């Protein structure tokens, strides 16, 4: 097993401890249709504190739609999202305060610097100081480019700025939508290492959507597979690995989606 997975698993916390604790993130019968077509269908996900949860599925299977509902950007037709037991529908402000997110591509005001963008976001979270802005920029390795305009940033730098933005208010849960999409191998590696460092060092729970199976195997301790908007399976990677000697996420994914 890869060392990276071991790091994530070693702090894999509550999910390892069993399913009795309150999930940090939970969806209950989440359903969403667009133009009569069900994009997300009765989705029930449980992410426990300490998880690095990989939300897997091909493009167009409902991953981003799910993430938009998890963050309140779109509204479910039915069902609910609970963050730390708080209903996003009923108490949005209190629920979303626990979350940092990048949804789809990290969008920023490109005529402002990285620092300015984060300073604007810091204004919207109580207790976030300017020194915290500098701190998160250093954490993601953008300290040296903080005063450059975002329009001069590469995609990888924008992803890192997005993670810095998500980290600003020290959330318990960070939701990332395809964080390594479009990055070169070096950029993918940087983001992967950053996520693992934050997961183990800062005890942050991650919910990461992706179709890149190898990346997910290296990062996640828990996975859910979505197809046609339905959750096909959800499980602990270590338990899954114990069951099969030649376990690989790729094999599991194709077996699950084929059936």
């Amino acid at each position, binding site marked *: 097993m890869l060392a990276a997975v071991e790091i994530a698993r070693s702090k894999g916390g509550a999910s390892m401890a069993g399913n009795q604790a309150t999930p940090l993130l939970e969806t209950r019968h989440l359903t969403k249709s667009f133009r009569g077509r069900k994009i997300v269908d009765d989705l029930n996900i449980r992410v426990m504190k300490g998880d690095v949860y990989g939300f897997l599925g091909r493009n167009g299977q409902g991953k981003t739609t799910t993430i938009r509902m998890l963050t*309140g950007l779109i509204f479910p037709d039915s069902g609910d999202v609970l963050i730390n037991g708080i209903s996003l529908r009923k108490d949005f402000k209190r629920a979303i305060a626990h979350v940092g997110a990048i949804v789809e591509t990290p969008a920023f005001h490109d005529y402002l610097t990285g620092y300015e963008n984060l300073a604007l976001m810091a*204004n919207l979270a109580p207790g976030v100081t300017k020194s915290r802005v500098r701190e998160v920029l250093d954490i993601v390795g953008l300290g040296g480019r903080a005063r450059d305009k975002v329009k001069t940033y590469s995609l990888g730098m924008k992803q890192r700025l997005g993670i810095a933005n998500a980290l600003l208010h020290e959330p318990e849960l960070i939701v990332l939508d395809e964080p390594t999409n479009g990055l070169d191998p070096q950029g993918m590696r940087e983001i992967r290492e950053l996520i693992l460092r934050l997961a183990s060092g800062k005890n942050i729970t991650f919910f990461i959507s992706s179709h890149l199976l190898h990346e997910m195997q290296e990062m996640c301790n828990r996975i859910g597979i979505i197809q046609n908007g339905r959750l096909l399976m959800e499980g602990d990677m270590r338990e899954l690995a114990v069951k099969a000697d030649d376990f690989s996420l790729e094999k599991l994914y194709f077996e699950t989606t084929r059936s």
Partner: protein
Amino acid sequence: MMNLLGNELYKLFRTRKLYVFAAIMIAILILNLYGYVPGDSMVVWTFRHGQSVPLNTLDLLSQFMVIFIPIFLGDSVTNEYRRGTLKLPLLRPVRRSELLGAKLASLFVFVVIMVAFYVAAAYAVGTYYLGWGDGTEYAGSIVSSPEGIRLTLAAVALLILPFMIYGLFVTAIAVLAGSMSFTIISALVIMTVALNLNAVEAVAPWSPAYQMVYYHEAFIPEPDWSLALKRTGILALYAAILALFSFRMFRKKEMLY
């Protein structure tokens, strides 16, 4: 809410549009006053004194606002939605009504800045080409300079209300639209049609486009309280309907970018 407004204002001052709009105002004023001959049959203006320029060219200010407000809101609401930056504050503990409220508050600041700049620029350009003069000409009579300045400031302050109602109208479009160009073009098309309807007496008093040009005339030089009440009532009705609609639509809007 104040932090959100602070963010909106920060963005406003960091983009170029405020400065470009100011430059356009000066350029148009110069184009209009360069070679201007009072009493020339080719122009509708008759003023002779530079200090009369702001008060007698308020229709020009209204035309600027007809164009600038859709650009401001098209960028602030629709373009941010399209570019994905509108969702940045919505991923924080911020209610959608607070965000839209902050955007409308920043529109108010924008309108006040534009109006103040126009008055200053019109005084400056007018005085440069015509000289200050010994009184302010308005509605066929001449009043003292201090009274002229008072009337000018009162007129532009009053016009801020219909400008904001127009802003609410554009906000309703911006919230529904998927692209900045759609917001701007549809607002301009509807407003151009509405301005042309000003000639129809039965419709004109009910039109926000009419109020954008003539609202202040119910108050200055002497107030006609019955007319002022009627015009203000109409604007208040528009404000209530448009604000209710915009906030409701924005609360329901699905952030797809």
